């Protein structure tokens, strides 16, 4: 399979933080969710991929283009929508369209206008006066109209109402096809999980997990057991556990344990998985 993004031995160093990704291959035609806490390295990774930060070691390829080989081609295959308004707030949508058409010959005007209409964005008022949600939507459709092969969205549903969230999910799903890939980052686990095909979990600058989402969910069991069952041996097989008044709930990837002890289980949500992995150190202290 050809890759949307390939990363080799990436190291980004700051005074008190290091992002270290030895290898990562993101296939084409999928939605990848990058999840992790604040400070896990999500933005650092996106800054390196988008060439916003050039100060790193290692190699990054977008759609098989390396930046040191052909910067134009690399940047053309890539679109980045940050979490903040990316256009002059004094413009209105019409002015923005004029500028985009002049600056980018292949700007898809038809798509842009259709989306402005579908999303009921007011084309006459200043962009700065649009609601937070509408500004986010405008960011996304403007970059989408440039038709990048790889589109990266930073926190695309952060702070939005449910209707707007849904519209953005629709936008994402209508954009991808066999050649186009969408990558988003989020520090919440939410409805974005649902539409993502792959998940990349970052924690303290390292890859905690990278796999098909269904595989990750499939591999994990959220189990319930009685307090007496929680022996030291069993503890070793649990990623994490919580003891409450009645029983113990835990997360494990040990299917033998589930079978042998006849444990009740459900399939965890992404949030369950994230919480259990990320609070591990706290419990062990």
């Amino acid at each position, binding site marked *: 399979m050809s890759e949307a993004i390939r990363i080799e031995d990436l190291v980004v160093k700051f005074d008190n933080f290091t992002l270290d990704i030895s290898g990562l291959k993101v296939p084409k035609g999928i939605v990848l969710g990058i999840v992790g806490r604040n400070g896990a390295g999500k933005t650092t990774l996106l800054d390196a991929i988008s060439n916003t930060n050039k100060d790193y070691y290692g190699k990054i390829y977008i759609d098989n283009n390396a930046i040191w080989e052909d910067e134009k081609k690399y940047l053309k295959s890539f679109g980045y929508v940050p979490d903040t308004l990316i256009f002059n707030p004094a413009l209105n949508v019409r002015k923005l369209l004029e500028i985009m058409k002049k600056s980018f010959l292949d700007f898809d005007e038809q798509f842009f206008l259709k989306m402005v209409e579908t999303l009921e964005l007011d084309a006459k008022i200043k962009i700065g006066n649009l609601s937070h949600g509408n500004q986010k939507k405008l960011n996304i459709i403007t970059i989408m109209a440039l038709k990048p092969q790889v589109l990266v969205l930073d926190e695309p549903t952060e702070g939005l109402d449910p209707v707007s969230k849904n519209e953005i999910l629709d936008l994402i799903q209508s954009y991808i096809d066999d050649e186009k890939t969408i990558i988003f980052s989020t520090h919440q686990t939410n409805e974005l999980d649902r539409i993502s095909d792959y998940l990349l979990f970052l924690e303290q600058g390292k890859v905690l997990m990278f796999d098909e*989402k269904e595989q990750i969910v499939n591999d994990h069991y959220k189990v319930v057991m009685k307090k007496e069952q929680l022996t030291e041996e069993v503890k070793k097989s649990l990623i994490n556990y919580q003891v409450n008044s009645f029983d113990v709930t835990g997360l494990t990837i040990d299917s033998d344990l589930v079978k042998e002890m006849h444990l009740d289980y459900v399939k965890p949500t992404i949030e369950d998985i994230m919480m259990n992995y990320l609070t591990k150190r706290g419990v062990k202290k």
Partner: protein
Amino acid sequence: MTSKDPLYIQIKEEIKKKIITKELSAESQLPSVRVLSKELKVGVVTIKRAYDELVNEGFIISKEAIGYFVLEISDDWIKKIGKEIIKEDILNVKEKAKMYKLSNSDIELLLKEELENE
């Protein structure tokens, strides 16, 4: 469906049900992976997995570059699947009976009553 099952299994079972009840008739074409993923608002890989498992289990067939099609399934096979599913339900009943201190004859009586109660 319970949350015991991951999403792709829930979708697989839903489609299976439609094939067994003939709501999806033999030889009819299933929506493409992309279309269904958009309709259900789930990832393409989720749909792909559901379809792959349906292929493995013999409910549908994949025709290269055309799509997925429902296979003819015999009544005998449907019965066989039904038996397996009901067997699982009975195991659940057994467990509950034990918890509520019901004997085998209590259960048999209940079953008889309900079966005649059509």
